[in-house]
């Protein structure tokens, strides 16, 4: 017995689904990786010390597993659905990362984003719109290195 389903997602909102931004290019800088490690208290020297990385068998300093938000800027704005002004609260519901290839300090990675899905649901808190954003990082050869799905809830 839920309230009668109403859709707040417009055709203009739906037209945004599946459209990639321009790539934003990020040189993975040693200083940025060091500041990230300091911020989260990650003290494994392989991320900041080339000798430690080599001693552990890596060709270069590997990027920390959770570093990706630091290079999550795209080359053009990701247009978001405006949902006809629906909702008063937005929440970050969760993230899911998939690691396909190793990444190292010194690489230049390209980040693109798209809206992968917009769906609606009636829950206990009322009507909500769930938007899934997908970020993709590619290496210089165009291979996907990492993919992320971010789920946002508007209600």
């Amino acid at each position, binding site marked *: 017995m839920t309230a009668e389903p109403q859709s707040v997602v417009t055709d203009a909102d739906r037209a945004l689904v599946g459209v990639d931004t321009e790539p934003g290019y990020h040189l993975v800088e040693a200083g*940025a990786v060091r*500041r*990230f490690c*300091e*911020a*989260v*208290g*990650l*003290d*494994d*020297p*392989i991320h900041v*010390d*080339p*000798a*430690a*990385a080599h*001693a*552990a*068998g*890596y060709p270069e300093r*590997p*990027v*920390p*597993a*959770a570093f990706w*938000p*630091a290079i*999550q*800027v795209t080359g053009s704005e990701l247009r978001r659905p405006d949902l006809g002004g629906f909702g008063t609260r937005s*929440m*970050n*519901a*969760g*993230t*899911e*990362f*998939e*690691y396909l290839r*190793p990444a190292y300090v010194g690489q230049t990675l390209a980040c693109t984003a798209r809206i992968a899905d917009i769906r609606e649901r009636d829950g206990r808190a009322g009507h909500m719109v769930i938007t899934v954003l997908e970020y993709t990082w590619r290496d210089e050869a165009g291979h996907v290195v990492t993919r992320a799905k971010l789920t946002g809830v508007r209600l």
Partner: protein
Amino acid sequence: MARRSRARGDKGKADGGAALAVAEPQPAPAPRWDEVAVGTAIPELRKVVTTRTLVQFAGAVGDFFELHYDQPAAQKAGLPDVILQGYLKKAYLAEAVVRWAGSPQKLRRLSASYRGVDLPSRDSAPRSFTVRGTVTRVWEEGGEKLVEISLEGVDDSGAVTTPGRAVVALG
């Protein structure tokens, strides 16, 4: 020449005032896939997060959303204090898994849900954030020996604010 440094186990360094790792797990040999079973627990990781940590993290990832450093803005949004960034908590989930697995490159997937808010530790109200994990599946796929770990980011009351899941490939 670069200084001699053991790859893993150089744990004596100060970390620049970042989140203090308390009772940090000691480095252990990487687990062998055939010795891991459903129910195997990974070592707990406990972090004390201060407002300084939140600002450091905001700068490190370039996310300047006020809820993470501006107390009046947080209170206006109905929160008792500034809150931990979701990606900061996710970094702790990642660290717990990677410390156990032995390398960041063994991680294949990592997800986290931001179910509840976590507050920073204050002198008047000391707090910590703890990550626990248990193996929930062991299997082979695409030539890789995989392990799935169910993760829980918990606050001091034991509430799971940040459930997650990781998949790692073990040699």
